[in-house]
């Protein structure tokens, strides 16, 4: 099912910018047009580029927000999400928890 939906109309997650658009929909209740425009502006690309693997693969690696292939020495997990917080100007719950745990030392 998920493959069929992706092929037909999905954004592609960290293959492109689907995770970023989803964060603005779920976190800020933005509808699709507004969410895409917001993310595109932050990335310095067009809304059309957000689902373009050719544009997003290199851009994601350049700004350290996580890529879909297993490249060593690239931010993953929490590290990538902290960079996403900075990019989008949002707080991500798991990053907040990470910072709280670090402050306990």
């Amino acid at each position, binding site marked *: 099912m998920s493959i069929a939906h992706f092929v037909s109309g*999905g954004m592609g997650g960290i293959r492109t910018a689907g995770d970023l658009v989803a*964060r603005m929909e779920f976190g800020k209740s933005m*509808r*699709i047009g507004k969410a895409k425009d917001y993310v595109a502006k932050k990335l310095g690309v067009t809304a*059309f580029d957000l689902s373009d693997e050719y544009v997003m693969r290199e851009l994601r690696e350049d700004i350290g927000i996580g890529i879909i292939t297993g490249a060593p020495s690239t931010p993953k*997990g929490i590290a990538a999400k902290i960079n996403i917080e900075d990019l989008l100007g949002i707080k991500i719950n798991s990053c907040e928890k990470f910072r709280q745990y670090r402050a306990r030392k």
Partner: protein
Amino acid sequence: MSKFCTRNGDGSTIYQTKEEIIQAIADGAADAADMGGIKEITSNEMEHLLEIICTKNRIVSVERGFEVPLSYDVGQLDMTGDNGNSGGGIPASRLNGALVHERALCSDTFELAHSDYSIKPVKPVIANEMNDMEVVQNNVIIPYFYGAMPNLGTYFKPDGPYDNPPDLMRVFKIEEAQQQAEAAAHTLARDIEYVATKIDSAGSDGFNFDTTGAAGDADFVGTLLGVEAFRKSCPEANIMVGMAGESVMGIHGEIEYKGQIVAGTFPHQQVKFAEKAGANVFGPVSNTNTGKSLAWNLARAVTFVKACSETSNLPLHVNMGMGVGGIPMSETPPIDAVTRCTKAMIEIAKVDGI
């Protein structure tokens, strides 16, 4: 007369003439409009739907630039679960499930799920769920939620403490049935607040309340009250309320949320309750009739969801699993039908996600 190869609501292949498909689209749209008291889709939209259904290609897709993010129910159970969840029966960890979705299946979001996928059974294993949430959050990049059905049915005997309302109604104890449903709804709301707040404290991005209203109007009200309490406890949580059906069943009949009876409401009305409760995203549903064609079911689904989309202030992630959103009711829905439904729902109903 040439015929087009299409699907029935049960997933089987059928052949219909163009005229039969046109009639099915008109009838499906009219059925939704009549039931929901909403406008039919326009003649241009019906024509667009006809093109989508009649194209000879096995797989169809939206135009480039119109892609939307996808969200999920049952989390990693679609890999590890049995066929009750259409799961693949693969012995894999929950972390594996999340990473495979993120890195291999191109998921935009994902979620953690208990094998019973209901709020009540999560309570005794909440620490386990919190621990797994923390482990996965340290590794994934995509938004990662917790998902569960409110499932008010688990609160009634023999599974729960409350008398079963339909059993009471059978012996004409109507008021007692309503009281039991109301009491169960309040317990559900309390449990939602407990489970969701704990999961939030483990770093979850949010909570997906899936198949809301499956046990009728008291199920819906209990969920809304739970969402309201969760929102108060965790103002930044990402909350999605997804429905079980196109219409809320009036098993109680008179139960209200913020002074309004919820029984008999349709997606364009349900979304307003979700907004008031504090949800971020709403998941409308249209149930598939297995005795009707894909054209009929999809026209009906698109009509319901378009009306919801026009009135909603929230992004809509329409439910498009087996037997909802025009998709055939089958454990393995045919890919030609699924992709047609996806395209129609994005291009005609203007949904924000699936």
